Structure formats: C-alpha cells, structure tokens
C-alpha cells in the first residue's frame, strides 16, 4: 500500500511541475472550468437556499386552509360555516381569517391587508411590513391614509413595523383591527375570507381534508404539504431548466477540454517521448495524464464552488436572481441562510467533472501511445 501511495505522490509531484511549465495554457483551462462550476454551483446553491426558505416559512402556516368556491372561483365564507364544520377529531384549532389585497396607486404595488386573530391591533392603527415601510417611508407614529375601493378615505396611525427577520412572509403585509378591516373593505358582517385549521398529526391531515370536503361540498381544502410540494417542484424545475439550458455550455466545455487535451504541443510530445524512452510505460503516462485532469478538475471544482458560495450567500446571487426567484414590485429583501446539500454537491460533481474526464480520456490515450522515437524525431 505504501509503495502505491509513494508512486502516486511522485506522479502528482511530476504532474504539478509539468502543469506549472505550461502555465498559460493550463490557467486558461482552469479559468473556463472554474467559471462553469461557478455558474452551475450558483444555480444549485441558490435554488436550494430558496427551497429551504420556503419550507421554513411554511412550517408555521396552518396545515389546512379551506376556501369556498362559487362557480369555480374563490368566494367569501358565509356565516354559519365555522359551526357547520363543528368538531372534527384531530383538529386542534379552527379560525376564520380575514385578509385581502389592496392596490396602492402611489407606489403601484399590491399590499396584503389582514386582520389578525391572535394579536390585537388597536382600531385606527396599523402594523406594516418592512417593504411597505420602506416604500412609503413609514416609521412608528406616522399617519398614513388609504383610499378604499368604495372611494372613502381612511387615515391610520402606524403603530409598529414588523421585524426584518420575518420579511420573506411579511414584506407587503399590513395588519389592522377587524373593525377597521370590515369598514375599509365594506366586508359583510360575519363573513370570512377563508378558514385555517391546524391538525396535530400529519398523517391525519388527509382524513380531515376528506371529511371537510364531505361536510362542505362547495369548499376546497388546500393542504400545506401540497403547497410545500408545489414549491419544491417549482424550484427544482426552474433549476433543472436552467441546468438544461446550461448543458450547451457543458458540451462546449467538453469540446474545449477535448481540444486542449488533444492539441499537444511539440514540446509536450517530446516530453512524453523521453519519458517512454527512459522506461515509463503507456499505463504510467495515462496515469500521469489522468492525475493532471484530476488535479485541474478538483481545483476548478473547489474554486468555482467557493466563488459561487460567496456570490450567493454574501452578495445575494445578483446574476441568477431574476430567473430563479421570481419577481414582484414589493419583493421581500431577505438574507439567504447558507445551506449546502450533499446531494447537490454530488450532482454538481457529476455535471462538471464527469463530462470533463469523459472528454479527455481519448486524447490522453492518443498522447500516451505515441512511440518514443516518433515523438522525439518530430
């Protein structure tokens, strides 16, 4: 075993020296390779972080949301529905929620107005999300007025701004009291927007949903796991599309690697010729060349991955954000939590190192079988 390691060590030594001798050529290849890894790794890291973020956000959301449908469209929950659901075994809490959208012509953006059940907001005051506060320049104590859809003007005092930490979910949120909410939107008394149910046992969720659908045939239960699954598939699908588009780049890179590996300079050919003349076998030359490819791959992979990590988690992935994240006027500003996923690193490795190694095998062999005399004579 020791002899084997010793041999590989000497081969690596020799390879490094020979790589250093042709610095410009190898640096060029390394640069392109690093760039490819960088692009692919950025996409992978960014989507994974987004997926994590979505999962984190949805962890707090209710297991089931019940909407009423009229002619296939979402409608208000009339009075009596909460009672009609009654007690379903496994359901911990049922609450009717009040929320709606408001288009603010000043900043040309939609806000989400909501009357929270859990925490009370005093009538006449608002608690606003960070993005709303930013776009309207609001601070606690300020007064702001909104023109309701009915044409009436309502003035509110800002009681507080929601913490930045919750920005991904609360960017465009405006919290108000129930009375204000109903007056502002002229919401019919006793009606709710939808119903949220929390279910303790995840395996019971489907049964509860089935019971709900049976009890209220005009309603549609939306499960949290379905939302999560949709998010996961969307982000995966976006990532896959970007990777598929970038596969052209991978092919181009494989061709470049092939070219670089097969375009041996006269000096390199002579070098191989001399090596073989002094007793190296074809197998040794192949091993040396494989080490060369391996070393370049590994350095490029590490460099590219680290660069992508910095780009995504330090600078917020300015290059790929528009494609992968989606878009909105009041888009939340959020810090991505650095997360590395083993599967993604493995996949990335497959995507970059595998095509490179596959592409250079034939040129390596071609270089290795040259006869010493032919090589030295040319």
């Amino acid at each position, binding site marked *: 075993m020791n002899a084997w390691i010793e041999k590989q060590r000497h081969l690596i030594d020799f390879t490094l020296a020979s790589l250093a001798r042709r610095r410009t050529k190898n640096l060029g290849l390394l640069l392109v390779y690093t760039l490819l890894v960088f692009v692919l790794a950025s996409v992978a890291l960014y989507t994974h972080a987004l997926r994590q973020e979505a999962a984190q956000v949805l962890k707090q959301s209710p297991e089931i949301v019940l909407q009423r449908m009229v002619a296939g469209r979402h409608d208000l929950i009339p009075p009596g529905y909460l009672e009609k659901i009654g007690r379903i075994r496994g359901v911990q809490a049922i609450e009717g929620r009040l929320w709606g959208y408001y288009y603010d012509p000043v900043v040309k953006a939609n806000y989400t107005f909501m009357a929270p059940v859990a925490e009370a907001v005093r009538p006449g005051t608002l608690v606003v999300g960070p993005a709303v506060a930013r776009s309207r320049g609001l601070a606690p104590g300020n007064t702001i007025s909104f023109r309701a859809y009915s044409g009436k003007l309502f003035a509110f005092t800002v009681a507080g701004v929601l913490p930045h930490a919750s920005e991904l979910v609360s960017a465009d949120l405006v919290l108000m009291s129930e009375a204000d909410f109903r007056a502002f939107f002229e919401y019919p008394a006793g009606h709710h927007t939808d119903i949220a149910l929390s279910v303790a046992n995840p395996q019971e969720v489907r049964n509860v949903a089935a019971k709900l659908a049976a009890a209220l045939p005009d309603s549609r239960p939306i499960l949290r796991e379905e939302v*999560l699954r949709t998010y*996961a598939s969307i982000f*995966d699908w976006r990532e896959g599309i970007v990777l598929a588009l970038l596969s052209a780049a991978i092919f181009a890179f494989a061709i470049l690697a092939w070219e670089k590996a097969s375009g041996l300079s006269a000096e390199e050919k002579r070098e191989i010729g001399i090596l073989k003349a002094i007793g190296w076998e074809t197998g040794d030359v192949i091993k040396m060349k494989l080490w060369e490819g391996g070393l370049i791959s590994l350095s490029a992979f590490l460099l590219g991955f680290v660069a992508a990590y910095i780009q995504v988690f330090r600078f917020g992935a300015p290059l790929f954000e528009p494609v992968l994240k989606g878009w909105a006027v009041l888009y939340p500003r959020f810090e991505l939590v650095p997360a590395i996923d083993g599967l993604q690193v493995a996949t990335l490795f497959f*995507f970059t190192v*595998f095509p490179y190694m*596959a592409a250079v095998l034939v040129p390596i062999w071609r270089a290795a*079988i040259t006869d010493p005399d032919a090589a030295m004579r040319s």
Partner: protein
Amino acid sequence: MLFQPAIIALLLASGVAVAMLAAAAPFAVQVIRQWNIASGSERQLQLERRTYLFSTLAVFVMAVQLVALLLFVFNADRMAEMFVGAMCAVGTLNVNPYGFPALLAQMAVFFLAAAWLAVNHVDTRAPDYPLVRIKYALLLILLPALLLSFGLQLKYFLGLKADVITSCCGSLFSGDAQGLAAEVAALKPAPAMVLFYATLAVATGLTFFHARTQRAGYLAAAASATAFVATLVGVLSFVSLYLYEHPNHHCPFCILKPEYVHQGYWLYVPLFAATAAGLGVGALQPFRNVASLRTIVPAAAARLAGIAAIGYLLVAAIATYFVLHSNLILIEH
C-alpha cells in the same frame, strides 16, 4: 419529472456509460477473436495499444457506476417530498412499477462492476495480460446489464408523475402485509439477531481465514453474499426498529434520512464495500492457477478478503452500537 438535476446527472452517467461500452464492444469482439500476445504483427500491436484506451474507459465507466448507486438512492430519498404518500425512498420507488427494478438493476451493476474491476486489476499486474479475452468477454456480458439498468432508469424517471398516490414503507414493510419484504419484517427480533450475528461472524471468519491462508476463496465469496442478505434481513427485522425506537417501523430506507442523521449510510457503505470485495475474491478464484498470475491473484484476493473482513466487522459493530444506544427494548433480559 426529467428536469430534476440529480435525475439528469444519473441519466447522463448511465447514458455515457452505455455509449462508451457500446463503442468498446466491436473492439472487445476483435480482441476475443484475434488476440495473440506471442505475435509481433502490426494488428497485435494495434490491439495492445487500444486495450489501454478501452481498459481506461471501462474502469472509468465502472467507477462511475459505483458512485451512481449512491446518487440513485440519495436522490430517491430526497424526491419523497414530491409525491403524495411518500415519506422516504420506498414511496418514491413505488410511484411506478419500474422503481424497484431500477434500484435492483443498479445494485446488480454495482457488484458486477466491482467484480470486473477486480479481474481487471490482476490482469494489468501480469506482464502478459493473461485475462484479456475473459475481461473483454465479461465486458460484453456487462453491456446488456448496463443497458437494462439504463432502460429501467429511463422508464422509471419518465414515468414519475406527481399526481400518483404512492404507498410507502408503512404498508410495504409492516408485519401484516403480503410479500417477501413483509415476511422478513415479521421475523421475530431474537432469531433475526442470531441469524445476523452468526452469518456476519461466519463471513468475517471466512474472509479473514482467506486473507491469512489464501484458501477457501469460493466459500469466502459465498459467505459474503449470504452476509449481504443476512444484513439486509437484520436491518429489516431489528436494526431499523432500534434506530427508530419504534416496535413496528421496519423501513430500511428511512434510516438514510436527515431525521435519523443519515445513520443508514454508516451501515450500508461498509456493507456494500465489504460485499463487493468479498464477491471480488470469488471472481478472482478461477484464475489463481494461471501461470503468470500465481502470485498476483492470491495477493490481490487476500487484500480484498481483508477489506471484506474489516467491512463486516464494521457492519456488526455499527449495528451493535445502534442497538445498545437505543431506548427501545425489544428483548427482555
């Protein structure tokens, strides 16, 4: 569902592997028909040169297949969140009828590739390449296996529909269900433990014996194969129970999940490595009397047997650790 990065990577790997082996097939036929190491003809020289290329290609393909198995399982586990009813890899693999065959095919390719790599290793050590013909004939046999594995994977991934309600480990590995897996899961923990430890002890002993004396190679290989099955039975019937600390959850895939800190990999990686090495010992046995391999084969087989012995010891130690560290009590003392 094709636009999943890991799926693209897996299909790329098996696609390229099939393409490379297919490209090597005509050459393999040529070698089998015309190889003559004693001849100095130009054709023989050509062949000898080309073997370098195709051996490297084949080694590359096989090595990639070893990693692909890990990626396949890892990916199946991860995709569980996309299917209704799936909680781990079992649910994902159950989405359509090609899932489990694809996994089994990938496992078969894994062991075949490992055996081929062992044969290739000893062949390249001998000065006259005595096994070249056999090696390339084996390559021709491996090609359909790889093709089958690729086809099953393609079928499986193309047939992944997110709206299918799949059944997961709870219904597949419960004692009341029908089928082989359920029968195994219904095994009582005490006899399963005896079977597990006895088989592992025999496998460790035989591989160790072979490593020291270079005898009983076939027996060691057979014991390895048996130990592989016995370990899987052990995982199904008692190791998983202790890991989950739940008397009825038998799933051999959930232990790979992050909730259980990926502990399954600690068990499966040594197991697969040991079994591959043990089967490699068996694959080398027919060639121990070839003149130029008289010293090489026993040395290589002994080393492989040593790896297998260490692997099985590790498997037993890790399983014991899981059992002792669990809060679950299955057997009253």
